[in-house]
């Protein structure tokens, strides 16, 4: 494959888009600038995906570039690896979080290690898009947060946007990255809207950093993906009580932007990590360990975690008791402040 990379549209325009539509526009932009980019997945063509994220793209870019695949996740990933070895940049859609596991072997034993085991001679810039997380009242296997299982594997980048702008910027960066990227889409936020500036430069290095979503001085709330909004709501409630919370949106789990978190906690002295995935051995455990190592003398309280429980994702009628709510975040902040 000799890819033809066209210059990106230089004109910037700002639109109000849903989170899902921002991803669509990011995919469209990537398909437009690089002939090697292709989308693969179940029902992504004529149907436009079960969440309509790829709506209209097959019509515009053809069946060879927006591919309705057989119903086989390992097959999708395995053939994507082969296509990447031939010079293509496949973007695979896994229909729901709980369906990624048939592809787990290809992702962890093959995709993650191809560059390493070839000593840099082979490159497999595959993106795996995974709608994840709960809160949508779904049935079993449709609400899980398996990101830590991938972040534990060296060779993969694991990211999750929390705003429509990041959704647009980060999908383009993920596709341009020379590395495999697991791109976790908080499906519960697909319909949230925001201003998105379209057409800016693709910033691959921008995939690596966290951002401070709200500045504050009394406690640091660390979140990513769907729980950034939860943390921001908690910060609003805390402000009403006179407590100033800083919210750090990690954006990426691997690599983990430790310096941004550490700089915040050194100022606030308190840290609460919030994610939907089970707390036990989750990304928050890594954040807590790093903060403890690097902020030991600044800490006023132990690092606390608010996350899912160590049970399988419960039935939909119970999910709001399982997911980290604003109240549970506030409870953790109270405990941190009480030390």
């Amino acid at each position, binding site marked *: 494959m000799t890819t033809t990379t066209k210059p990106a549209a230089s004109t910037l325009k700002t639109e109000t888009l849903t989170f899902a539509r921002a991803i669509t526009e990011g995919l469209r932009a990537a398909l437009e600038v690089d002939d090697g980019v292709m989308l693969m997945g179940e029902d992504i063509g004529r149907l436009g995906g079960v969440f309509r994220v790829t709506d209209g793209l097959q019509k515009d870019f053809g069946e*060879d570039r927006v591919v309705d695949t057989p119903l086989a996740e390992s097959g999708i990933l395995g*053939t994507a690896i*082969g296509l990447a070895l031939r*010079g*293509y940049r496949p973007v695979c859609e896994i229909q729901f979080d709980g369906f990624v596991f048939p592809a787990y072997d290809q992702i962890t034993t093959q995709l993650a290690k191809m560059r390493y085991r*070839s000593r840099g001679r*082979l490159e497999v810039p595959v993106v795996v898009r995974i709608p994840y997380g709960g809160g949508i009242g779904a049935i079993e296997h449709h609400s899980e947060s398996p990101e830590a299982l991938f972040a534990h594997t060296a060779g993969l980048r694991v990211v999750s946007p929390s705003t429509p702008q990041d959704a647009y910027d980060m999908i383009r960066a993920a596709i341009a990255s020379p590395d495999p990227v697991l791109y976790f889409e908080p499906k519960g936020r697909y319909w949230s809207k925001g201003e998105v500036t379209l057409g800016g430069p693709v910033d691959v290095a921008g995939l690596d950093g966290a951002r401070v979503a709200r500045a504050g001085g009394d406690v640091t709330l660390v979140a990513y993906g769907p729980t950034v909004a939860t943390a921001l709501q908690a910060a609003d409630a805390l402000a009403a009580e006179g407590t100033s919370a800083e919210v750090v949106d990690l954006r990426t789990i691997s690599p983990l932007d*430790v310096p941004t978190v550490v700089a915040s906690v050194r100022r606030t002295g308190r840290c609460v990590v919030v994610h939907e995935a089970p707390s036990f051995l989750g990304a928050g455990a890594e954040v807590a360990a790093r903060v403890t190592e690097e902020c030991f003398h600044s800490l006023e309280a132990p690092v606390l975690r608010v996350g899912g429980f160590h049970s399988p994702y419960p039935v939909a009628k119970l999910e709001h008791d399982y997911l980290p709510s604003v109240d549970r975040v506030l409870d953790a902040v109270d405990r941190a402040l009480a030390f």
Partner: protein
Amino acid sequence: MPNDTSSGGDVATADVTPLVQLVSPTGERVVEPDNARYRSRADHLTSEDLRAMYRDMVLTRRFDDEATALQRQGELALYAQGRGQEAAQVGSAFALAPQDYVFPSYREHGVLHVRGVDPVDRLRLFRGVDHGGWDPAEHNVHLYTLVIGSHVLHGTGYAMGIQRDGLVGTGDATRDAAVVTYFGDGATSQGDVSEALVFAAVNNAPVVFFCQNNQWAISEPTSRQARVPIYRRGEGFGIPSVRVDGNDVLACYAVTAEAIERAHNGGGPTFVEAYTYRMGAHTTSDDPSRYRDRAEEEYWRLRDPIDRLAALLRSEGAWDEAWATSLDAEADAYGENLRAAVRELGAPPVESMFDHVYGGPHAQVEAERAWLREYELQTSQEAGR
């Protein structure tokens, strides 16, 4: 093979399923109406071509013997022998064009030999100094894959890339390209192989599924993998499928040549079952005496693919004693060079464990690299005190 269902692959079906055969076990040409289309594919091979195949099979066998000995001497961590499968590997590889791409499993030493992959590089993985060992782009040979069946999907995806590159059915034999994936009878039980057959079939991808049924997946006979002859797996997916005598180098060549031509012309995938026998152990860690009979091994020892080609060369007056003597000397020198070069392969620098984990910088990898560098510096300074 006697109809003894307690041992040996799919013996229950071996005798009743037709095999494409061009040379009999005793070295005579097999001329039957059924194999005419394959005979015509091998007709153009000259005595010189046959001697070239023979040489490659002999050097592949020598490679195998040397590597096994090196493991016994503690020079390799492990080695997976290919003994007995030289005809399937050399014959199929002879049918490939330079632009075709090979996705091997980990026992395809004969294929790699024909493609020109350096024998020393082929042992880096087994010596524990590299996870790969060669540059895939140099000979269009992907790295060995140890997770059974995974690479069959990679080969299929690669073939889908060839289609998108417009390099199928151009009418130019020097441009049309195809993929050959090699795997074993055991791999056919893996979901990835079935998924690869699905993807290849529905995409009409230019890929040849070359299954070497060597009748043993470590200790399990093929009867533990399938109730039908393996080649019928391909048929179930709508893929033209053929069973070939895997110890007949000419038949393996002809069958692969037809499959490659079909792929090049846009005819899509082919499934080849090369019925052969793993004469050695699964690897140097294995002990076949625990699970198979001496009598079975002896049966197949008498059907050695190298002996069969030698018999053909002799029967056709293409055997030349001076040439055979010089080939022996070549094999001796080859073995000596291999032994010396493998012993020279040292461990890579410690810090290289952090290289190429990612294409760009990754904060955790860089932090750990710096930490280990500092740690090693400190411990070496303390030791020097």
